[in-house]
């Protein structure tokens, strides 16, 4: 299955829409195509724009209500644009017993947003996850595809600064 990377070429929305239409057609004859198409859309745009939903519904011949129903069911799909960096705090059991709630509180305080919200400067979106399978390193937060382990509430500021400065905090300093 082709991996769809988030487009960073600076193309305008129309360019992306053309790309999306190509992708939808490539999946059209696959059984159960709707979800892989939505996954590709999410990857391409960072969320699922209304225009994309219309195109998907039209080309795959699925009712709009169904497409909407599927999007709103799965937590990975977002109808709203997300920030440049998606922070997901793991609230799985192992992370929870190792203090993940305190880490989440610290992040909320630092960013001054609630779960599901994006900072006004569009740098960060805060979300929770329910286990990334790195339980031996709890508590975990993921920022985009980077895993940060043994996160302490006091260490949160440094991690955020790293992304603001477009650097990834040295993983070995995480503990």
């Amino acid at each position, binding site marked *: 299955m082709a991996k769809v990377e988030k487009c960073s070429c600076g193309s305008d929305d129309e360019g992306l829409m053309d790309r999306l239409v190509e992708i939808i057609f490539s999946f059209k004859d696959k059984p*159960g195509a709707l979800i892989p198409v939505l996954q590709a859309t999410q990857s391409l745009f960072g969320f699922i724009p209304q225009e994309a939903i219309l195109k998907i519904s039209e080309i795959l011949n699925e009712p709009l209500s169904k497409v909407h129903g599927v999007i709103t*069911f799965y937590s990975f799909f977002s109808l709203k644009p997300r920030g440049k960096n998606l922070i997901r705090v793991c609230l799985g059991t192992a992370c929870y017993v190792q203090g993940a709630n305190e880490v989440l*509180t610290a992040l909320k305080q630092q960013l001054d947003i609630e779960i599901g919200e994006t900072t006004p400067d569009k740098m960060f979106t805060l979300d929770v996850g329910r286990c990334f399978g790195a339980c*031996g390193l709890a508590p975990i937060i993921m920022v985009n595809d980077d895993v940060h382990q043994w996160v302490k509430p006091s260490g949160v500021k440094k991690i955020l600064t790293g992304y603001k400065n477009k650097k990834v905090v040295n*993983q070995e300093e995480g503990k």
Partner: protein
Amino acid sequence: MILTEEKTLLLKSDADLQALYKAILKSKEKNSEKIFICAGGGCIASGSKKVKEAFVKQIQSAGLNEKVSIMETGCLGPCAIGPVVVIEKDDTFYQKVRAQDVKDIVEQHLIGGKVVESLLHPVGENKVAKKSELPFFKNQDKQVLRNCGKIDPTEIKDYISCGGYQALSKVLTSMSSEQVVQEVSISGLRGRGGAGFPTGTKWNFARKSIDETKYILCNADEGDPGAFMDRSILEGDPHSIIEGMAIGAFAIGSSQGYVYVRAEYPLAVERLQIAIEQARSFGLIGENILGTGFNLDLEIRKGSGAFVCGEETALITSIEGNRGEPRPRPPFPAEKGLWNKPTVLNNVETFSNIPFLINVGGAKFAEKGTEKSKGTKIFALAGTVKISGLVEVPVGTPLRKLVYDIGGGISTSKKFKAAQIGGPSGGCIPAEHLDVPLDYESLNKLGAIMGSGGLIVMDESNCMVDVARFFLEFVQDESCGKCVPCREGTARMKQIVDRICEGKGEMKDLEELELLAITVTNSSLCGLGQTAPNPVLSTLRHFKEEYIEHIRDKKCRTAVCKELIVFEILDVCNGCQACKKVCPVEAILGDKKQQHIINTELCIRCGLCLSTCKFDAIVKY
């Protein structure tokens, strides 16, 4: 043609496979000393990529390229002490290796022949060098994880060199589908996803279903928080899953398989994709496999962040492109599953057991484990335990052995309180039952379940009422909403437990919780709802006193339940004002260099003062 130098090689018969196998083994005889660097998800997060780069550089500058080769492997197990490195020639195990340590390893150990003491794992007062002598490893029995840590998961030839695809060849060239099913039935293998349904029985139902189109599905939607067994197999030995699925497909008569992997595992998806493409190019899946006329194609479908899609019928519905809502059974998927065709769904670990089972035979497989639960089980040991990570032991191993002999005991200064096993469908085992054998029946008797293998160790700092509340919140978040008992029943249960945690509970709440639990269990549509009350029932059974304290005394003995915590500033306060400055509600009073005091009426119990104080002057109780 030098077989081992071919990047891809279409194997058209068992003879081709055997020739390649022998050629690879022969080439390994002359091969260099290996350095295994764990590239499981955990060690990657801890920085193993930088360690690998450092090894490449140091080996090069020491002129050892011909003599030493570096291999990135799947998860070795002890994630908490990663990045881990194993020197093959003398089985030396190094822990917490950083890039700056690599020069010493190369110069002192590889060249000088002397181990680097500071990187060895301590056991008591001593340091132990050999991996096979470490309690973490010697107390395990790696069957499913046999290849993890020894092979490059992105290299099919490594898998073949360990006997990979021999079982598939044996099945396709010398067994009938009935014989395969019989072998699996004799083994007593039970589904490793949590339900523990006999695998041979499931395959037999599907085998007998009359339909030309059948599907074989792998459930890699490992959603239980605290579980990472399947992740490690997907990342560390993906071909074992492919081989297991191919054997299953042959047994039931399917030529199309899907692996449903959760989206939270991008590395697992990547490695599995590589493995499928390699298997295809080597002719081990696709058309006319090994010239036997058997066809199978495999495709990956990714999840999109819904825990309920780990449930069999919800997973099927999701592949079909719908909201992941479960369906009533009967009809069971073996009869009418994906697109209404006979379908077998098994867990990653179940499939990974299959090649080994076929190779040794069902009877031999059944020699391990207990009377009713055969083989080994992988557990993901996490929480307040010294060495958290991946562990494989025979089914029936006592819990105590896992926590103390393998896990090294409690990582904090507090005592063991409970082991939560089975995820949101499971229960808590208290200290008095530490010797419980980890098998399906013994755990059921204590109100827990084996589950997929997630095992979270908790110490005295965990509030068991809060644990119940945590799981109810999880279920409420993840409930698909289709059936009333789960959607509404767990909501009401959560309201009651919330009230108890806030100090507003009443004694009659405990009866109401039990009654609701019975209703939700008996009338929910799927396993998510049916098992959602388990954490509550289990904590009520083993930790009722804590519930009573919350209700009667308005007290949380572990100071976890926010509304019941009291924060206090002690006499040692030196009036530095640090806590006063961070308090978001200005609840702290006191002048500079004077004893500070917290106004408990205003205090919102956020804990910022406690974490800010550098003089241990603030306590909570």
